[in-house]
């Protein structure tokens, strides 16, 4: 993660960044979608997908911009729109849709099949209601890619070590839940 992207991924900085990107980039995407018979909601969906991918690349320090940010976002959104709506891949995951774009994005070997995608969505919904604190801690480390010092300070731990112990407990808890729920859904394992 670069210093610039670290600065931008605090919650307030991130919201400010997204607001600016919305102001600069959403009109072009909305116009493209509208001209092809899409709705405002569909334009919102593809634009937000593009913002998610933009954020992930920025977080990883792998964003190489040779054009304005709005043009880059428009390129991703246009690609996603054509894939999702013209090729009727409406329910395909974001990773699968992006597989051919700029050499692809990092996918999940575990969740390639559509049944697995469905089961994963169910588990995510369940975790959004039960287990929020653990998931916030885990996503801070594994999704936002903060280091353990920053994780400890965000969640009020006395230090890196106690945050690491809690992270491990949370991982065990989530793994157990994934295991139990996936077996209940039965369509998980090959």
């Amino acid at each position, binding site marked *: 993660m670069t210093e610039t992207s670290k600065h931008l991924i605090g919650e307030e900085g*991130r919201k400010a960044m997204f607001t600016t990107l919305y*102001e600069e980039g959403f009109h072009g995407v909305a116009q493209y979608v509208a001209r092809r018979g899409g709705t405002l909601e569909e334009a919102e969906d593809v634009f*937000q997908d593009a913002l998610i991918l933009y954020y992930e690349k920025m977080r990883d320090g792998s964003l190489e911009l040779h054009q304005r940010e709005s043009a880059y976002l428009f390129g991703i959104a246009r690609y996603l729109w054509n894939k999702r709506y013209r090729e009727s891949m409406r329910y395909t995951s974001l990773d699968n849709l992006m597989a051919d774009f700029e050499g692809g994005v990092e996918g999940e070997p575990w*969740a390639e099949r559509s049944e697995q995608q469905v089961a994963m969505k169910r588990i995510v919904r369940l975790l959004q209601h039960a287990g929020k604190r653990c998931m916030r801690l885990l996503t801070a480390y*594994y*999704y936002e890619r903060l280091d353990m010092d920053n994780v400890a300070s965000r969640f009020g731990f006395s230090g890196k070590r106690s945050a690491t112990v809690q992270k491990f407990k949370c991982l065990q808890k989530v793994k157990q839940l994934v295991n139990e729920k996936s077996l209940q859904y039965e369509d998980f394992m090959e």
Partner: protein
Amino acid sequence: MKTSWSEWQWREDCLLGNASGEERALFEAKRLVDPEFNESIRWQQATYAVIRAYGRAELRAELKQVHQRLFADPAHRSFVEKIKSLF
């Protein structure tokens, strides 16, 4: 079966690309010859996949808030009207 912290960490380093080539080769070999180990690794991968999906879902919720706030903000009325006029 419970996995110890150090075992989990070793597996994590191998799965997330933070292990040396030698460690990684050992890890892959163990997966090939030990079905129980391989099964346990699949669940560990599944855990990371769920965390990533959760992170994306939370980010999307943040983006929806940004969208709603912009569309409700009187200071952005002309921006919103321009967008709405397209549909």
